[in-house]
């Protein structure tokens, strides 16, 4: 297979081809490097390329396969990750000046698990400064640029993860999601992304932003890819007391394409009703694709949403403010202006309201599930209410008047971090300018297998996830 064909494989296809001996890890790596050389300059998606270490790891993987050694589920597949996961002895910048020289003293649990599964770590990817914007703007690194059109944002904060997977530089990438940071770049770059249930994936060694709402997620081409990645990184970790003891199901084995008997609720007030016409032009036909697989679609309007939205606005703001307080006092000029302002507003949230938002979180979740899932197994909503914006029209550092447009991007994604629910975003079409549109599939706590089953069934019925940016 030539390099152009190799990079068009999905992650699971590449891993399975390696396992069957149809391709070597070295061939996969060289194909990735070729594409990175072509696509990295125009997207600015790559921060660090560990080429020599990856070559060595590929050689080891090829040798191991030759000896008949047991192979992990990601054996031989090069991956790159958002630059915020510790690897001992390596710098992870978190997209910031403040962490520019910070050398990790441990390796993140998720990286250890990917290593154990045989994945090759090829380096790190662009991200919004300290994982805190929805676009991929970054004053220090330069903006990450959308592979479909470099004038447009990639989505953030896992900007490089979205761009690199879309441009076929790697087959999958880790991201993090505190308010939409996996789902937004997945939607805006036209790839698939998964934010797992709160606690499902350990966070040890991942840069903290909001202890209550941070999750580590994954981006890749297909729902099947997400399932395989999740099975590798999920599960309780003794070094992360917040990680859940819930058993990790075999998500990939549950992908059968059959949605008969499944009821899927469409979140209408706000989520759909507030969406732009071009978003709906992609989203509404997607419902027919799910019906074609046997699902029944029903409207859902949880009355508890205003409380969810109000409390959502308090938690991550307050926690991010706490984490950054010392630097905000001592070196505020080392932050981008929009980020500094966002953190700054967190200091104005009264402690009693922050505590209320946390103390009522369980009750709000119970009520949301009672209202939303009473007649539905899963929920659907557009990932964004608006089309993918340009970099200029959401650059609040260049013009503070863009602030409102910037902050509104994550309005459909943020609530599910407060609720702690698992959500996938999958491509469901394109707008008139050729930019991708994404759709969220939302499940009950720990229902990742069902979320991915619906996402996979949708992808068997459509080919939006197979579309590649034409520039590369």
């Amino acid at each position, binding site marked *: 297979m030539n390099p152009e064909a190799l990079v068009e494989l999905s992650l699971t296809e590449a891993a399975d081809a390696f396992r069957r001996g149809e391709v070597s890890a070295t061939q996969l790596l060289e194909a990735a490097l070729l594409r990175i050389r072509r696509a990295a300059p125009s997207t600015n998606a790559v921060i660090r390329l560990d080429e020599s270490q990856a070559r060595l790891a590929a050689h080891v993987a090829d040798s191991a396969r030759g000896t008949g050694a047991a192979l992990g589920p990601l054996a031989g597949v090069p991956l790159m990750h958002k630059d915020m996961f510790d690897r001992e002895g390596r710098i992870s910048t978190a997209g910031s000046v403040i962490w520019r020289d910070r050398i990790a003293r441990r390796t993140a649990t998720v990286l250890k698990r990917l290593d154990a599964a045989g994945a090759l770590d090829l380096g790190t990817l662009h991200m919004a400064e300290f994982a805190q914007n929805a676009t991929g703007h970054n004053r220090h690194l330069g903006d990450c640029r959308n592979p479909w059109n470099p004038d447009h944002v990639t989505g953030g904060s896992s900007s490089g993860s979205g761009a690199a997977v879309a441009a076929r530089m790697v087959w999958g990438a880790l991201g993090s999601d505190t308010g939409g940071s996996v789902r937004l770049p997945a939607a805006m770059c036209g790839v698939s992304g998964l934010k797992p*249930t*709160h*606690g499902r994936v350990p966070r040890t060694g991942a840069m903290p932003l909001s202890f209550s709402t941070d999750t580590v997620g994954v981006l890749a081409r297909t729902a099947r890819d997400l399932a395989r990645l999740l099975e590798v990184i999920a599960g309780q970790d003794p070094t992360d007391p917040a990680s*859940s003891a*819930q058993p990790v199901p075999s998500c990939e084995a549950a992908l059968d394409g059959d949605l008969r008997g499944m009821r899927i609720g469409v979140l209408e007030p706000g989520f759909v009703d507030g969406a732009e016409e071009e978003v709906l032009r992609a989203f509404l036909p997607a419902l027919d694709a799910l019906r074609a697989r046997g699902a029944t679609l029903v409207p859902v309007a949880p009355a508890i949403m*205003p*409380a969810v*939205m*109000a409390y959502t*606005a*308090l938690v991550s703001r307050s926690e991010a403010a706490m984490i950054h*307080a010392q630097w*905000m*006092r001592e070196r*505020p*000029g080392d*932050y981008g*202006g*929009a980020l*500094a*302002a*966002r*953190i*700054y*507003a967190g*200091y*104005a*949230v009264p402690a009693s*309201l922050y*505590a*209320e938002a*946390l*103390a*009522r*979180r*369980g*009750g*709000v*979740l*119970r*009520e949301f*599930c009672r209202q939303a*899932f009473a007649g539905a*197994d899963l929920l659907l909503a557009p990932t964004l209410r608006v089309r993918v914006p340009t970099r200029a029209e959401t650059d*609040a*550092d260049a013009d*503070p008047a863009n*602030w*409102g447009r910037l*902050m509104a991007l994550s309005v459909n994604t943020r609530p599910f971090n407060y609720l*702690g629910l698992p959500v996938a975003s999958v491509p469901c079409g394109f707008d008139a300018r050729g930019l991708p549109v994404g759709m969220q599939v939302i499940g*009950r*706590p*720990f*229902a990742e297998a*069902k979320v991915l089953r619906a996402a996979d069934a949708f992808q068997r019925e459509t080919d939006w996830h197979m579309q590649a940016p034409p520039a590369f």
Partner: protein
Amino acid sequence: MPDSALALQMADMIRRWHGIAPPSACAPQALAELEAVIAALAELDGTVPFDCEAAQFEAALLECREP
């Protein structure tokens, strides 16, 4: 809106409690955004019939799994 009386009060409070000055030209916008949050919370007042229990979220996640 960005220089509303409330935003100025919040800036003063932040300076006193945290020793942090408005860091950038966007700071007034960021504070003004909280006015909408305050309004949303005011509308909720008395409509959220939940007890406050600090440790219940993880328990709720388990309770709300699929039946």
